[in-house]
């Protein structure tokens, strides 16, 4: 076994290195260190392995996540079929997921100017309300793109799902939009 690292690189440094966010001079130092250090290269390998797993799971639509346009571009570049449901505030859509769909996104439109905190209240028939807090949103984009969990959608029977986007303030929740999804399972 080679000697333990006397000056292990901080995880933040390893992460910034991996994503190209280090200054060039620091990058040179980190690369030389990684090429001689068992412990630090192992730590980076662990981060890379987690990243690889994140990539695989995202590719499968394994979990729900707020995304941006780059997610849709990447999915299409990989040849995935993405079903999209753009919904204006107050809108209602009939929706489904077919065996041919690889991913499904809800595009919740609205005016998010001045919003500093955004929560999503999810109401599904037969289930207690669920509140998802502090969603990231670009105020100038006028929509929140949410990639849904494909396993959960495929397992869902006919149901009506209401999503309410709210901005909490000292006087309570300010409603930004309510969106209704009438889901029916695919017949095929």
């Amino acid at each position: 076994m080679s000697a333990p690292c006397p000056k292990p690189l901080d995880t933040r440094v390893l992460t910034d290195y991996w994503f190209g966010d280090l200054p060039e001079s620091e990058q040179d130092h980190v690369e030389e260190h990684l090429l001689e250090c068992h412990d630090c290269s192992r730590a980076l390998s662990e981060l890379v392995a987690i990243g690889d797993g994140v990539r695989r799971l995202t590719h499968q639509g394994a979990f729900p996540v707020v995304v941006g346009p780059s997610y849709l571009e990447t999915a299409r570049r990989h040849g995935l079929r993405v079903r999209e449901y753009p919904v204006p505030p107050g809108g209602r859509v009939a929706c489904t997921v077919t065996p041919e769909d690889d991913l499904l996104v809800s595009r919740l439109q609205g005016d998010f100017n001045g919003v500093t905190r955004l929560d999503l209240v999810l109401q599904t028939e037969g289930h207690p309300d669920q509140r998802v807090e502090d969603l990231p949103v670009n105020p100038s984009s006028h929509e929140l793109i949410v990639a849904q969990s494909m396993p959960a959608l495929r397992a869902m029977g006919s149901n009506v799902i209401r999503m309410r986007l709210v901005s909490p303030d000292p006087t309570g929740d300010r409603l930004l939009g309510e969106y209704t999804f009438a889901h029916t399972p695919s017949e095929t």
Partner: protein
Amino acid sequence: MKKGLRYADPVPVNPESATDESDAELAGRVQAGDRVAEAELYRRLARRVRLYGLRHLRDPAAADDLVQDVILLTFDSLRAGKVRERERLASFVLGTCRRVVIDTRRGAARRERLLEQFGPALAPAAAASDAKPLDLDHLSRCLERLPERERAVVVLSFYSERGSDEIAAELGLSPGNVRVVRHRALTRLRDCMGAPA
């Protein structure tokens, strides 16, 4: 290619070294023609060079090729006595990595010539054989436990392969905030993956 995911390949996580010798000591034995030392030094360098390759080429197949090229060139130089400071082997390997990456990008075909010269003595399988499989179900549960913005930043970082500036623009954050959130999320994921499933 339908539904391909190019950059998806395990990285060896925990190869055990079979000796207490330093890289420099092994390099000295390689210079003297010791095949056992070659195998051990190969095992150590392969994972590190592959990480360099993944970082700069973002393609597992190209990273595997880089491992072959760089280690063959390094051993060739050691045998020829061209590595004067064996204590600074990492510096030599880094310089070789950089040159080969430039060559790779230019489409150079150095690999076949070197493999022809040295034969199959250095098998690529050693670079990947000790990869620890990741429990994807466990990782999925860990991801679902992350706060929303951390999950979003991690996905856009690894799946969309966007830099902090672009992610910041997409999610309405500052680039500095993206880096902080990304680091926090990865620390949580690593801790969660280390905990029982």
